[in-house]
């Protein structure tokens, strides 16, 4: 079962509708640096 009532997935124009909000996205991160999320070192 995928739907309660018959309904087809809507398609929209392939264009940017949202974005350009990197500062907002990073606002709640525990550790950031220069526009990036920071995690413990992965590669030695």
């Amino acid at each position, binding site marked *: 079962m995928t739907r309660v009532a018959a309904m087809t997935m809507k398609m929209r124009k392939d264009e940017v509708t949202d974005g350009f909000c990197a500062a*907002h996205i990073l606002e*709640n*991160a*525990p550790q950031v640096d220069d526009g990036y*999320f920071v*995690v413990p070192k992965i590669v030695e």
Partner: protein
Amino acid sequence: MTKLTDLTIAEARQGLREKSFSARELTEAHLEAIEGANAALNAYVLPTPERALEMADASDARLKRGEGGALEGIPLGIKDLFCTKGFRTTACSHILDGFTPTYESTVTANLWAEGAVMLGKLNNDEFAMGSSNETSVYGPVVNPWRRKGSNAKLVPGGSSGGSSAAVAARLCMGATATDTGGSIRQPAAVTGTVGIKPTYGRCSRWGIVAFASSLDQAGPIARSVEDAAILLGAMASHDPKDTTSVDLPVPDYAASVGQGVKGLTVGIPREYRVPGMAPEIESLWQKGVDWLKAAGAKIKEVSLPHTKYALPSYYIVAPAEASSNLARYDGVRYGLREKGSDVISMYENTRAAGFGAEVKRRILIGTYVLSAGYYDAYYLKAQKVRTLIKRDFDQAFETVDAILTPTTPGPAFALGEKSGDPLEMYLNDIFTVTVNMAGLPGMSVPAGLSSEGTPLGLQLIGKPFDEETLFRVGRVIEQAAGPLTKPQDWWSKAA
């Protein structure tokens, strides 16, 4: 004059329009009630008085100009699962400590667009996983209702326990809630309030912290059927940001409330007469049947043969989706981070410290049923059962317009009474999960008091996108059951 906090939304709207009181006065009365009650009830995890007064003043300005939306100046509480821009939203989990959304959920944005006032964020079970509001990281909510002659603290139901308790205790005029397996209807039933989970897709899920995406749906809890209709009308919308939201016009729900039940046929599902059902639940159900008959509805027994598989398959589908949704909490992008020597141990430490026991249990179950060796045996099988449950309802709705059942197997239980045994807790949802599995609308209406003097509810189940019939039938039950008695105020500092 009636206390401002005792008014229904419908009455308050009229009072505001007639300038009998201002939106600021109405909001202040509620803020005062919260201030006096929250220490005892723990319904609000974040009161937002400054924001409330700011919004109330804006409403007064609009009302003065003769403008204003459907909920202009009406103070509401918001379940902590709804993202509110600039106000901490944690789903009552330690892992979302301090998360302050930079965006607003579609449902709450719709409410603000209609002029509603935010009083604060309401408590709930952690990630909405629970039936008693005891899994919240902020501690349990206490039901404003008490058993006759007892001071024992009762649970307000869950997961929307803050919403149900706040509405019942007059700490808001209505509240948003969410329902994945019964989390609107079960708390409404045990607090003597009205709660409706609309059809899956009726309200946008965008900006609501996800539990099980194919089951989650937002809806209101209020003190009357009419208020629930007014609130749902404002909450529902088509939303391009949620592809599962439906592009159907939102009907005028409030207009359907008084239409009566003459000519409607209401089904009574045989399989809901579970063995060991409490006699008072059985007699309440019969009372509901009699009320509807007396109001002109036809009653017909129907069969939903796959009902007994609903709860077991729900506890496969819901944890499966939860384990997938909750994978995002890894300490990188938001919320809690616990240090680790490398990235894997940082993830592990964060998740070990951040999630509570019930959430961990469901992540474990979900991960298990989705694992390569068990996917077909559990998850796929549960999906098939789900289709059968939906088919049962489709067949029943060929001959009936709505279905009447009890909402819960019993009245509110005491804090700690069932928290030791997860299976016993899960059984609270036995009458409500089928509705989520089938995606149908379901509403709980207060129908009387138990032998303990605490509220009991009846559940109405409707055809997809036919919430209007539920409001019609619900109003008849509400009228027949008589005016809601209020819980005796023991919780405010003044009392």
